[in-house]
């Protein structure tokens, strides 16, 4: 029973990710795209934690830990780049 729930939760989270993809695809600003990368980080971590229970592979928790650090590193890189290059967004990237 609980196995089914875990599996359903993982599939739900993956579907959630698919929704988040729309925001990356759409933008409109690069900040939005990074935001979605953040969403991917947070959701993949939850997927891995649940998968560790479902498949009974404890090592996946360590993978989740690595993924948290990784998402932070990517954001720092991106923020650094967009700051150092003045403006990463084209003028059209302004929001309403």
């Amino acid at each position, binding site marked *: 029973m609980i196995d089914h729930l875990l*599996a359903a939760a993982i599939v739900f989270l993956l579907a959630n990710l698919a929704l988040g993809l729309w925001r990356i695809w759409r933008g409109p600003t690069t900040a939005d795209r990074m935001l*979605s990368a953040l969403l991917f980080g947070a959701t*993949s971590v939850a997927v891995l934690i649940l*998968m560790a229970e479902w*498949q009974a*592979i404890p090592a996946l928790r*360590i993978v989740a830990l690595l993924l948290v*650090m990784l998402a932070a590193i990517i954001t720092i890189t991106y923020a650094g*780049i967009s700051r150092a290059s003045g403006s990463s967004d084209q003028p059209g990237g302004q929001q309403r």
Partner: protein
Amino acid sequence: MTWALMMDVSLAIGLLFLAWQALIGGSLLRGIIMFIVFGMVLAVAWAWLGSPDLAMAEAAIGAGVTGALILVAYWRLKRVNAVEPADPSPLRSGVALVVAVLGTGLVAALGLASVAALEGEPVAGQLLNEALPETGIGNPITGVLIIFRSLDTLLEIAVVLAAYVAARAALGKRQVDLPTPSRDAPLMTALVTVIAPLAVLVAIYLLKAGGQIPGGAFQASALLAALGVMLVLAGRLESTLAVSLWVRLALIVGTLVFCLMGLGVMLFGLPLLAIPGTWAVYLIEAAMMVSIAITLVLLFAGSDGLKGVGR
């Protein structure tokens, strides 16, 4: 439809969609971000396929370090105002489409044939499982990497070193600038203070645990490399052209220890590259971890050395 089938299908569709987005259409920056996300989802896919080792390596290197490398290269290209190439001609797209469809068909046919040919148990894996208990190493992947296919691994760290030397030769003896602007962000210090010691701790844990459970030198060095990249970007490590003996030593220590161990055992009548015991496995792994991590960080920084920066 079982849950497992749903997982297979949704991960496959997601990966295909992300690859499509990363490669075709849209701006290059969007493509790069999509590629990073592709790496994250691929890490989840490896986990789902039952390989935590590959998931760790993919998360830290495939998505993290590679993503940071490509983003920084994009930034450098923008700074030198490189001319962006025009769109390809329709004729060329048509030819490429035909080639790609043929290639896809060929790979699909080969792949499906190889799956269909998988009747019995895999012989090599069987032999591996039989031979593994004698070595005292519980993790089959570490066993393969260090004991059974040690020549591959030795050549592999030599290739990583060669890539560093070649990249240095390509960029020449000059300072490459890096986007290190977030140094004064108020929360950055706190983040670095927490993550840096934790990452070192987890890396050492992975190295030690890698003998028996998922983990090992490659995963640990991937994590350390990702940490190094973060420290460089947070302005805590600065690239320098000053050559330091320690950095040079750290670059080659993996290859050096592996070679010395491989040759040294011949003095005791063992064959070339034989591993005299589990202690040797851990020694080689530790040396490899240091070398690969520092090589990847220096490749990222595009420099000869690194120096710490005070606050």
